[in-house]
């Protein structure tokens, strides 16, 4: 099994390290050829507007969309969550998203960098130290979306079928439990 890490821009290297720490191979995905070689895909944090443009110029948008529709497991954090959302609020008008999970997400909803923070978050697989960097906020959750993690009362980790999304950065804390959850519960139960 090979986990792809979308490597157009952002914190892809830190995600790859988390996956590799589980003994699982990774591939940096920048082209359709790279995508064809992976079984699942991580979408890292970074700037979602930058990634949106690079998804189009690198001819990756359509192939990723069809792989997700076919059931490829995908895990997006921060900007990656924005790319997966069905609705982006405060995004650029030309910004694309995969509409792979039925949530509305507001970009930079927690404020500028001086408002970025770390805090404890609660999930069924344990408490996590959540790092929120100019983080997006999940403002609406559709039917069929399961809330797996909360910060206070608000959802910060959600799942719908083959799609997992977090508004924080598990890759920045050296804690690979969420990556392990993704690899063990989402990529191996997939029907081929």
């Amino acid at each position: 099994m090979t986990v792809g890490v979308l490597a157009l821009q952002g914190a892809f290297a830190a995600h790859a390290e988390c996956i590799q720490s589980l003994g699982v191979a990774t591939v940096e995905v920048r082209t359709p050829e790279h995508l064809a070689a992976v079984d699942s895909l991580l979408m890292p944090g970074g700037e979602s507007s930058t990634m949106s443009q690079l998804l189009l110029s690198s001819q990756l948008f359509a192939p990723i969309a069809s792989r997700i529709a076919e059931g490829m497991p995908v895990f997006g954090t921060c900007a990656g969550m924005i790319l997966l959302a069905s609705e982006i609020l405060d995004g650029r008008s030309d910004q694309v998203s995969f509409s792979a999970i039925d949530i509305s997400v507001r970009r930079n909803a927690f404020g500028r960098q001086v408002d970025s923070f770390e805090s404890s978050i609660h999930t069924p697989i344990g408490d996590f130290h959540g790092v929120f960097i100019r983080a997006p906020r999940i403002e609406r959750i559709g039917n069929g979306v399961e809330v797996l993690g909360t910060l206070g009362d608000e959802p910060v980790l959600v799942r719908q079928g083959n799609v997992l999304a977090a508004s924080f950065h598990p890759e920045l804390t050296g804690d690979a439990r969420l990556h392990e959850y993704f690899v063990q519960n989402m990529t191996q139960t997939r029907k081929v």
Partner: protein
Amino acid sequence: MNSSNGSSVGTQRVKRGLAEMLKGGVIMDVVTAKEAKIAEDAGACAVMALERVPADIRRDGGVARMSDPSMIEEIQAAVSIPVMAKVRIGHFVEAQILEALGVDFIDESEVLTPADETHHIDKFGFTVPFVCGATNLGEALRRVSEGACMIRSKGEAGTGNVVEAVRHLRSILGDIRKITQADNAELFQWAKSLQAPLPLVQEIAETGKFPVPIFCAGGIATPADAALAMQLGAEAVFVGSGIFKSDKPELRAKAIVEATTHFRDAHVLARVSRNLGAPMTGIGMDEIHESQRYASRGN
């Protein structure tokens, strides 16, 4: 810094975290809201708001200072990507002002006229993260020891000439590679010769990498320059005068963004390098007197 609800802002992890998010991207110098929009449209991951690009600072001479807050606010209002701004080396009050404006990253920059010839800013005292320039590993580690969350090569800003940035990257990254091979006794000598804190030298030896992201800045003018910096080991690039001093800023900006992502793919580099019009003219290093070089400011 802890808030009442148990969450903390301004931690090293949160500050270094934004530097992580900018990796693989292009940070562009802009002097107006219109240029900032062009940069965002082209796929910049952040913009650096300043009154004059380095090439103009070099041409005009005089004292170069922090930009007018209203100009920075206009740029903040125009784009949704992070906005950075520059302060003079050692000018912690300019930094306090930029933090109050909600700037996302502060560049304590040799491109502006230094305010303090001996001391850099104590960057641990701020919630906003800082980037600092460096020409070698010792300088880079001293900036980290003062709280910098990102290091960039100094290069020689405003020249459109990448040679100095290449020298600085090779020096910094080459010494990191040597330290990862050093034994414990040699690490003491490394710390001494670099004039850098021993614990940071030991951290490099243990982890095999520098404590914060290392970006390239200074003289990048073409997509090939950006890809060169990335292949040498930079993790992202700053482009200063190189975009808006060229013939076709929109096209060149987009081309440099694509080149930074696909930096190992020569076919993409060939495609994006076509028909960009004239790059900025540039200056040879032998045309700049030693005293006019920015890289020697603040070490």
